[in-house]
């Protein structure tokens, strides 16, 4: 997030696009509700009529994957009605003319044909966003899990820069990140192309710095494989061994049958987890890890706040903290890796990572700190891009609408979208074993519009067979107008409804994110 979570409450215009905030980030949604109680306008763009959409002053029920058409049309209105922030664009950005040129054809009327949103509504929303004092855009995977995910984000950023709604308190571009420490995992360089703090592996100086710190002769210069490419590499026989820590790709990755096939082809798979997940079941060796309650450490949240995780109990059974296990394996491979505590590891991170340099466990005792925090006296950074973008001028990256990779056709006439439920989390490894959450919400269902249900002769509670070109699942139907006609929706929380057997692994070429929000399916009544 460019801003802090608390700043959402200070916005007077919120555009929430592709985020089911009340279910996926319930406590962040409280800030949006607070803003609304203070008089803010909430606009929600989502193909489903989620609780957020119900709360919204305006619900833009756009067609799946048509975000760029909507966002470009908003830019079109803002430019043609001279509502853009001329001072900000002149002083802080570059390539405005190319944006203007690209969005010229995205008239609200043209966008209406693509998105299904009335042109007048697009105009009203565009004016509201442009004229607001503090406007914030919230988004999650509804924007990013498309083959044009990166371009969707560009379109969001273009809009924010066009109106100068970035680089100040309460206004910005705010992706709400999904996992407790997905921000931290990225910050720490658990990515194929960067070390900690996004220091590129391709830069000689960075490799020199890290090889010196890590006491190795050299480090690989070639960026590695992303998760989807690893699975393809395993299937092709190029990747022979994998070490998976705390991830369950068999349920979370698209085209699950292909993932199972790929992992089975490996010569060696070691999985480190707290439960015997569907992925761990395929492993040659399973290492029992300690849960968050059993170890010290830090998580970095979606607003870049580094916060302490504290050991409350001893590890269950013979489980060990993940960091200790990694040290054990490294040492056994001839690279002595020893730390007395998590705090010592953090000090090493701070010494190699400019954005974390000023953070220490001693400081975190007083509360979380938001990076960048370059030195021990720096208070942390609640919002980014004040006065200057990281690259200097903010660059407009104009983007064109492209349709999703797989659209409904005669054989597979419905769009399947997937997401999360309020009472569960990700692949359900934890939430299916709480003694409470799974008791309250014990089975998954497929949301299907009454008109589609009637056409397919599906009744409430029927078991239906849903098929895509890649796989099939059986699931109970729930008839609801939360989904529009032509769309069905379910979550990926339940192993019994392993929906990622159906989803499309087609990926965004830049971010390599799969298009989990759109694939074509058909629904057949079973009982």
């Amino acid at each position: 997030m460019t801003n802090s979570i608390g700043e959402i409450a200070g916005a007077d215009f919120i555009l929430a696009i592709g985020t089911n905030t009340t279910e996926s980030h319930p406590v962040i949604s409280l800030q949006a509700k607070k803003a609304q109680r203070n008089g803010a306008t909430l606009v929600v763009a989502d193909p489903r009529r989620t609780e957020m959409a119900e709360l919204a002053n305006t619900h833009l029920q756009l067609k799946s994957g048509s975000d760029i058409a909507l966002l470009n049309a908003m830019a079109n209105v803002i430019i043609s009605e001279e509502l853009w922030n001329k001072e900000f664009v002149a002083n802080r950005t570059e390539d405005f003319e190319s944006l203007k040129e690209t969005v010229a054809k995205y008239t609200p009327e043209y966008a209406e044909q693509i998105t299904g949103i009335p042109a007048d509504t697009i105009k009203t929303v565009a004016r509201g966003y442009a004229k607001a004092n503090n406007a914030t855009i919230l988004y999650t995977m509804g924007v990013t899990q498309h083959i044009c995910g990166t371009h969707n984000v560009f379109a969001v950023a273009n809009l924010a820069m066009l109106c100068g709604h970035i680089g100040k308190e309460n206004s910005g571009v705010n992706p709400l990140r999904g996992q407790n420490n997905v921000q931290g995992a990225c910050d720490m360089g658990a990515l194929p192309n960067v070390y900690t703090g996004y220091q590129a592996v391709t830069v000689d100086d960075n490799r020199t710095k890290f090889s010196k710190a890590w006491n190795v002769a050299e480090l690989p210069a070639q960026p590695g494989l992303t998760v989807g490419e690893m699975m393809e590499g395993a299937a092709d026989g190029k990747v022979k061994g994998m070490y998976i820590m705390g991830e369950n790709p068999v349920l979370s990755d698209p085209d699950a049958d292909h993932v199972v096939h790929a992992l089975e082809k490996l010569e060696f798979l070691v999985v480190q987890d707290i439960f015997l997940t569907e992925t761990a079941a395929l492993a040659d060796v399973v290492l029992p890890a300690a849960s968050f309650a059993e170890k010290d450490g830090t998580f970095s949240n979606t607003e870049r706040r580094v916060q302490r995780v504290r050991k409350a109990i001893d590890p269950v059974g013979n489980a060990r903290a993940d960091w200790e296990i990694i040290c054990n394996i490294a040492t056994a491979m001839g690279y002595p890796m020893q730390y007395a505590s998590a705090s010592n590891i953090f000090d090493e991170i701070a010494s190699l990572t400019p954005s974390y340099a000023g953070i220490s466990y001693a400081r975190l005792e007083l509360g979380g700190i938001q990076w960048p925090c370059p030195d021990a006296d720096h208070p942390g950074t609640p919002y980014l891009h004040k006065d200057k973008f990281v690259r200097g001028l903010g660059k407009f990256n104009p983007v064109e609408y492209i349709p999703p990779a797989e659209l409904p056709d005669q054989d597979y006439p419905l769009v399947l979208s997937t997401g999360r439920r309020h009472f569960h989390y990700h692949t359900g490894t934890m939430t299916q074993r709480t003694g409470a959450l799974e008791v309250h919400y014990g089975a998954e269902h497929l949301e299907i519009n009454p008109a589609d249900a009637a056409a397919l002769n599906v009744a409430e509670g029927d078991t239906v067979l849903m098929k895509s070109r890649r796989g099939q699942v059986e699931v109970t139907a729930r008839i609801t107008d939360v989904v529009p006609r032509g769309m069905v929706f379910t979550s990926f929380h339940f192993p019994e409804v392993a929906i990622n057997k159906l989803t499309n692994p087609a990926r965004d070429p830049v971010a390599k994110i799969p298009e989990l929000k759109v694939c074509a399916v058909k629904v057949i009544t079973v009982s």
Partner: protein
Amino acid sequence: MAEVTLTINGLQVTVPKGTTVLDAARQAGLFIPTFCHDPELTRFGACRMCVVEIPGMRNLPASCVTEATEGMVVHTDSPAVIEARKTILELMLANHPMDCLTCGKNGDCRLQDYAYMYGVKTEPFGGEKHNYPLEDDNPFIVRDMNKCILCGKCVRACAEIQGKSIVDFAYRGFDAKITPAMDVPLSESECVFCGNCVAVCPVGALQEKGLRSAARTWEVQKVKTTCPYCGTGCNFELNVKDNQVVGVTSCDGDVNGRALCVKGRFGYGFIHHPDRLTTPLIKKNGEFVEATWDEAITLVAQKLGDIKDKYGPDALAVLSSARCTNEENYLMQKFTRAVLGTNSIDHCARL
């Protein structure tokens, strides 16, 4: 900002104009008991426990809704004040089950604390008592409306923190109670079981089902940590008894204050679930066999080393975890790059 100076129990106190007498007293380090007051919620002035004596005022005003004024004189524990508070407590206890012996909130209950403080033991106003059925048909929250003192904090927390307004006052007089619309249980309402009402309840009317049946309030050690579910980063306290996590309670989180969602507050049961992996496993002939750490670590090191030697480092790939700590992700990429010699490390940021 304009200031006012008042005298509380003989102490001169200067506060910004608009400050309540309650806040002024607390700033001066003076204690005033409250049930319905909460700094995060709108002022309510319902329970009257915070009454004080202010000469010149017609009766004893509630300090939580009385603004401090210049030259005001306040007595927080005069005989009249003490008598009023005792009477309020007696009236509350007149319709209270008095089952502290078995109540999960025993030891963490303001009604109990104040009854002790003011020596209120009996119920001089004995008479009819409500006998509402216990509502425990959901796995998260137990509601016992017999213990409710109608402070309305849950009503305001639901409306003002959670933004849901699931519960409100219903009925009148002696029959007044807090309930979802149409007097249905929470399980039949639109309640999302965030438990933020439980976090503010000053008595035993709202209790966490798991926590309050697992430990007495004084038996637990509280450890402040960060939630392991979504990316919001809520802080809460793990309640620990005998090396077991028995519950989660709110603390003052940087991001969330006391607010949590159902997963954060009630989703801790996985920690001690019998399915937890407790020993390394090695697959032999298609079956997992328990192994020692030495065996498992040696085997992993040897296999990864063999693949690296035979096919080169890029035949190895590592998935790190958005669920693990920064320290662990840091070490995992260090291990992947420095020991395995490849940059093929990723995690599920894209999923």
